[in-house]
């Protein structure tokens, strides 16, 4: 019985696969809302996206950008989410429409502002010196680092500070009783040897094991 389970286990790839023409939306593909919009058999009209190489992508999460067209034209905002597959960018609190969320029974739900995605071509990065929109190029510094440079002024635009989604700032973290301190973690206690961990543990704990398992076969 366990032999069948082993082969079944080995053949389980278990990676969420999406069809080549899956239409990616603002919902994450594994959520119920996305499953309702894109059930397995549904085929939607193909949305054409100008292909941009991963190295040429210049808008990162946390950047401040300015909107060039649309309802909130001329406003600047921080990028909250980036969708590379559709060249979308969602800014915090800009380009919003209003909807009710969490309705049940008679209660119509909370009225919230939800942001609509903006295409990459309707958005530009902002030069930190004069806070005006500018075109961006990827160039190399003297040290060889690849940075974004504003074409108009030549000023380097630094990468936005990476903020964790759970809001934890590592420098301000207070260790709990179950946290190993950084000094203990970085201690190097490994001595390379040809024995496996199990053999070393058996030697240290003086465990004698002379029985050997019977030969068995699995398919």
């Amino acid at each position: 019985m366990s032999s069948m389970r082993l082969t079944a286990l080995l053949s389980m790839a278990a990676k969420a696969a999406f069809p080549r023409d899956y239409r990616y939306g603002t919902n994450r593909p594994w959520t119920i809302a996305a499953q309702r919009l894109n059930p397995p058999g549904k085929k939607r009209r193909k949305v054409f996206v100008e292909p941009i190489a991963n190295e040429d992508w210049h808008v990162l999460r946390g950047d401040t950008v300015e909107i060039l067209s649309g309802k909130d034209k001329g406003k600047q905002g921080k990028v909250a989410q980036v969708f590379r597959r559709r060249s979308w960018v969602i800014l915090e609190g800009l380009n919003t429409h209003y909807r009710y969320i969490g309705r049940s029974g008679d209660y119509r739900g909370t009225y919230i502002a939800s942001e609509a995605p903006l295409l990459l071509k309707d958005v530009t990065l902002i030069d930190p010196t004069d806070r005006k929109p500018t075109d961006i190029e990827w160039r190399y510094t003297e040290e060889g680092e690849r940075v974004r440079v504003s074409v108009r002024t030549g000023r380097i635009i630094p990468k936005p500070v990476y903020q964790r989604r759970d809001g934890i700032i590592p420098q301000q973290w207070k260790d709990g009783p179950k946290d190993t301190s950084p000094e203990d973690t970085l201690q190097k206690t490994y001595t390379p040897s040809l024995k496996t961990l199990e053999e070393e543990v058996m030697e240290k704990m003086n465990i004698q094991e002379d029985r050997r398992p019977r030969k068995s076969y699995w398919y």
Partner: protein
Amino acid sequence: MGVLSALMRGLVRGADRMAEFTSKRGPRTFYKSRGARPTGVLTASRKFIPVQAMIPEFVVPSLEGFNLKPYVSYKTPAGTEQPMTPEMLFNQVLAPQIERDIEEGVFSEENLEKYGLEKTQEGKLFKLHPKNFVR
């Protein structure tokens, strides 16, 4: 949800045939294990004899002076050590001894056991290939 999402569109009717048939389904007389290893032997008269060797026993050493805890602090910076490869292991463990033996002139290809290399994996409890331990 699985296949039942197609049910929502009203195209397919009936139960979910591809769901796993576990021990929670079926009649009372249906017995199926959920994967736990047996800890004894079931005899012909349906009596269960527990075998002490099949029951796992945890042998825990004393944790005096052991400072590692279950979780790692967020303040820890990324480590700088490279992951161990077979080449690195050889260079650190075997290469010095072999070089010393070659310089002394004692190195012989039939006598590789004295460096810790094994001719076959037969008779070992933890075989490297085919690997018979989980880790």
